[in-house]
């Protein structure tokens, strides 16, 4: 008897405190972490915040009995390489988990090869296997447009697309799909696959980084590897970014990472060849401007 009364009381919630929900879900932590750990990407952060508040309000409405259908959460991330799509997807998975929209919050990253088979009858089990692995979490399909190859009408990609669409629709509560890739190719992909366009609610665009942002990223990367720039090498890095950006195959943060890796290689070589006697930690972690200026980029060549 008492239990019944208590249950009744619990069911008739008439008020929710959004601020409390916000704090309790741990979403606030993720959003601040997103702000601090990712440089630039203003529009992306705003969109994620908007999405987070929408989902939070939806959950609150559900509590008050204002039931609406579970929202479509499938997303598309479009932007140039190295703009942080995968990193943000990882954060997004965590965010959706904290908000209670996915049960486990793991991220499964796949490309065309993981979904599409090599012969007839190979694709469906392969795609289903991946989808099952991603259930309860987020499926991140990198370079999604390669699934669709209009030039080959017998391509098995179409089969994978059909299964994907079906599961995206029927198992909406079980997994969230994020499609990612270059902006123009993604647009074309959506144009030729209207089924995808209508099933994806959130299109988020990732802008390129500015020179200053790239330099900031470089500094963060160097610091995370326990190295440091001095004044000259920082200047050299800024110049490197300026020149590298104009060259083909520039991949934003990824190019910066590669440049730093090569600078570390040169630094190690320089220290090894020049050192006599004992050296300290600060010497080992200092990246000099020569380490950067030796790059082919400065002499008109291309760093891959």
């Amino acid at each position: 008897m008492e239990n019944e009364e208590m249950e009744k009381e619990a069911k008739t919630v008439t008020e929710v405190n959004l601020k409390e929900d916000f704090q309790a879900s741990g979403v606030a932590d993720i959003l601040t972490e997103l702000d601090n750990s990712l440089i630039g990407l203003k529009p992306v952060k705003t969109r994620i915040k908007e999405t987070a508040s929408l989902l939070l309000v939806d959950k609150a409405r559900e509590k008050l009995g204002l039931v609406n259908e579970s929202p479509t959460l499938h997303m598309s991330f479009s932007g140039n390489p190295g703009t942080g799509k995968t990193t943000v997807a990882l954060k997004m998975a965590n965010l959706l988990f904290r908000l209670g929209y996915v049960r486990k919050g793991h991220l499964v990253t796949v490309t065309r090869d993981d979904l599409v088979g090599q012969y007839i009858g190979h694709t469906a089990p392969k795609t289903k296997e991946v989808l099952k692995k991603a259930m309860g979490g987020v499926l991140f399909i990198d370079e999604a447009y390669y699934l669709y190859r209009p030039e080959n009408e017998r391509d098995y990609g179409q089969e994978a697309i059909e299964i994907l669409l079906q599961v995206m629709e029927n198992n909406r509560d079980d997994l969230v799909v994020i499609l990612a890739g270059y902006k123009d190719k993604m647009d074309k992909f959506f144009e030729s696959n209207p089924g995808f366009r209508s099933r994806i609610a959130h299109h988020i665009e990732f802008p390129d980084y500015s020179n200053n942002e790239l330099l900031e990223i470089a500094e963060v990367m160097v610091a995370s590897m326990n190295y440091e720039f001095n004044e000259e090498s920082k200047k050299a890095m800024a110049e490197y970014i300026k020149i590298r950006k104009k060259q083909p195959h520039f991949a934003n943060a990824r190019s910066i990472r590669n440049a730093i890796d090569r600078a570390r290689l040169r630094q190690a070589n320089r220290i090894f060849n020049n050192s006599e006697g004992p050296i300290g930690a600060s010497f080992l972690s200092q990246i000099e401007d020569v380490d950067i200026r030796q790059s082919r980029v400065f002499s008109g060549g291309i760093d891959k």
Partner: protein
Amino acid sequence: MRVTQGTFSFLPDFTDQQIHEQVQYCIDNGWAVSIEYTDDPHPRNTYWEMWGHPMFDNPDAAAVVYELNECRKVYGSYYIRIIAFDSSPGWESIRLSFIVNRPAEEPGFKLSRTEVKGRNIQYSITPYSSDKPQGSRYK
């Protein structure tokens, strides 16, 4: 006659939500979950047909429920069970097994007594359904 085999067999049939929760318990224990089906309900019929491979690396039970529904589409009139294997002892041993789908009508078992030497009696049971050939036992 309702066949009772495995865990929970004296409870009413589970809903998908309840199956989901039981399977999630198995997965959280690190057990591999598998789906099996048969149309021979004899209690000594231990090895049922496998529906796909055991699912070793799915962190969420939704995958199992999804496959179960796929299996129901094909073998909806058969017995289907879910089995959880624990490999931690060094071999795969069954930790949990429960029936999740059964035929609409279960005709039960025939008990036959055979008198043998010294007026002893040997008992054996035969499912009525296995009079018909495999594949046409349940409609």
